[in-house]
């Protein structure tokens, strides 16, 4: 254990579109510390070497989904990435598909709001809840199954890892399809399969997916995207054939 710490090279794809600065690689060297994450390494770079460096950390605990980036080419959350799991040179680039703000910062918020509006990702119910009455019941297993799909943190890794989105920018992506699967499962949402078909029953929706399933491989929360997309496709085919 007496070996001296590694010197890491963070190779960052830098850019500042607002100032017309073209993308270019810049290397930063930091000494590796025990338990170092990319959050800690990048914070050190910003404090010591490059005060202008842009990135988006918020919770730094893998919960909020802010810090998605390409880590050695693969989408992931930088806050959870331990440097010891990587080589001594780590390349970092902003997530593709999303609007670039600068350096490692992209506008996932705009994209996600667009998805929420387009797919109407809220409970659709005509009934006004009576807040003082005992709540309607739900089977415990069903509540857990809904939460399983509700765990998406909208980090955008699935979007960045999606083959279809490279060719069809209006594709809803795994994040969108998972949302539909979540609300479809929820009996409190009164929308029918026909309603959902209207939202995703074409090749910008569930029929656009080419089943490359990069989304499933890169999801930091391990959501069952492969199963959900396949299941949803069968259900939507059933509506389409009616």
């Amino acid at each position: 254990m007496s070996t001296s710490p590694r010197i890491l090279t963070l190779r960052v794809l830098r850019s500042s579109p607002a100032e017309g600065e073209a993308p270019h690689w810049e290397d930063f060297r930091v000494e590796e510390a025990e338990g170092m994450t990319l959050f800690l390494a990048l914070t050190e770079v910003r404090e010591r070497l490059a005060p202008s460096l842009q990135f988006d950390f918020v919770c730094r605990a893998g919960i909020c989904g802010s810090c998605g980036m390409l880590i050695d080419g693969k989408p992931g959350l930088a806050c959870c990435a331990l440097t010891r799991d990587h080589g001594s040179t780590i390349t970092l680039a902003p997530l593709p598909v999303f609007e670039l703000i600068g350096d490692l910062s992209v506008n996932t918020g705009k994209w996600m709001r667009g998805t929420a509006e387009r797919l109407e990702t809220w409970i659709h119910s005509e009934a006004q809840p009576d807040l003082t009455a005992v709540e309607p019941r739900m089977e415990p297993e069903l509540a857990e199954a809904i939460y399983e799909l509700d765990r998406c943190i909208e980090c955008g890794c699935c979007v960045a890892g999606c083959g279809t989105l490279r060719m069809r920018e209006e594709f809803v992506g795994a994040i969108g399809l998972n949302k539909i699967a979540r609300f479809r499962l929820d009996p409190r949402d009164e929308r029918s399969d026909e309603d959902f078909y209207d939202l995703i029953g074409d090749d910008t929706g569930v029929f656009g997916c080419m089943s490359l399933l990069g989304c499933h491989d890169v999801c930091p929360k391990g959501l069952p995207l492969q199963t959900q997309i396949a299941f949803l496709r069968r259900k939507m085919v059933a509506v389409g054939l009616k």
Partner: protein
Amino acid sequence: MRIVYTDVLVVGGGLAGLRAAVGARRRGQDVIILSLVPPKRSHSAAAQGGMQASLGNTFKGAGDNEDVHFEDTVRGSDWGCDQEVARLFVHAAPQAVRELAAWGVPWNRVKAGPRQVVMDGQHVTLTEPDASHGLIAARDFGGTKKWRTCYVSDGTGHAMLYAVSDQAVAERIPVHERTEAVALIHDGTRCHGAIVRDLVTGELSAYVAKATCIATGGFGRIYRVTSNALINEGIGAAIALETGVATLANMEAVQFHPTTIFPAGILVTEGCRGDGGLLKDASGHRFMPDYEPEKKELASRDVVSRRMEEHIRAGHGVKTRFGDHLWLDITLLGAQHINGKLREVKEICQHFLGIDPVKDMIPVRPAQHYSMGGIRTDAAGQARGLAGLFACGEAACWDLHGFNRLGGNSVAETVVAGMIVGETMADFVESSAGELQVSTALVREFLEREQAKIDTLLHGNGTENASELMRRMQDIMTEKVGIFRRGDLLQEAVDELQALLLRSRKIGIGTKRAGANPELVTAYRLQKMLKLALCVAYGALQRTESRGAHFREDHPRRDDAGWLKRTLATWHDDFQTLPTLAYESLDVTRMELPPGWRGYGAKNAIEHPATEARVAEVATIRSAFGHADRYTVQQALMPFDHLVPEAFRGRNARPGDETS
């Protein structure tokens, strides 16, 4: 000059701000939300364990109601809270949970029949009643008499935030993401909105609003070791302070959470202990029963954190190169429980420690976690000192929590206070007091002032380094204004923070760009954060007693005779280096629950002269109403119905009601 007009401006896109926005929107007002980040990335998402509401659905929750929740909350606060607000809160919390259920939150549900749980280190079988099958479940949390914390695995805040955020989308409320309010526009008596900086372009605009609500969360980042997200820098509270008229209250009341992973400071939920996890020391000994024989690991957070630090000081910590820590042992809960109900905890342990909590103990140590203090408001959420300004959630001192907040009461507060403040703001906007009466000259004055401050930072001849000063401030707060406080150290902290404040006026910036510029952001936020830090440190120095999370080694007793009062801080002019402090007394003669022993922690308070008489009076009222229902008795002790907005009146039904 770009001016945006709206009825209601909500600063902060977390749970409190979103819920307030939805409420005002549903009353027909135009609402704009400002958020540093996309709202679903707010720190509300990090609330893991759950939200307290006395539904009383489970076997261990049977018999729970508003009265029990109220008493737990007041005891938790060490009698520092506003008891009328606590009443209002416990009344509305069940409605908030049920509303969230209707909005899609997948609350864990009761499964009828026997189930295995761990209590006090023992495996026990509980049998959940058939009548509750499918109703919202609850887990145990610290400082509560009943199992009252409603939860969604350990992703409760996430599920709540997504549901409420999606409601805001459904209501078509625009959220201006990556924007920051840097000053409030006001004329000394009335708030007219905010000066807002676009964090991408750097442009300053004026948002003129009839009602402005600060819901920016806590200020944990003034500490080095904190569970808080990076955005929890307290800027909303700071811009209120900088008006010179709005008031911050109880800023010295800072909570330290017992279990954050060591050394990163990332939270692992109180649910770990609520579900049966144990705290152990270097020799594997379970030490909490030695200190707290009654509540053990489930005393309130202030007490558990203090006991842990005490145990470390006695030499029982696990020694590492980063310092000492203790162990949180949840291995006895078993793989099925951890993988199902504590999965975020499991992921955090895997990601940041490389361990599996099913098999391994978790290294933990207390860290800064919650700001009980904030913008002083009345029970309706109106800020003191500035009409048209409102606050809710952690940014506010509504004063639900006093000097210690119970776990599960903060996410509950966000939505409950949001419900109430949404109504308050709608009422205000509809009233004649809500009319806009602002001149564009005043707006221009504020805009130009803020632009000048930024220009000075960017192009002045300052030489101080903002991140260096930030680090120093955080070190001072963690080392000298932490869990154990002492007059001499607090004085040192105040002196050093004042010096830092002076230096912060001479910050220089290397990155000159006007747009996205993290260095500039650090600089102007630091100037504001130092004022908050001074409110905390100076307030702590002056408060020569120990109450809740504020513990003075040189004044270890709670002193109701001298200190049953709320600290009020104002900052009248930009050149002072200390806040102006004043105090407001809590009225013992009106308390439903007069001061006493909490049921855990020290039993050595100095009694308030009015306590004895009020205790007798309460006893008399209770016996006089001996056969009345609990609502009537409560009404006789401390009426609060007048504080409940029309929309949230009515009694909360519970499953046992039909049979009683």
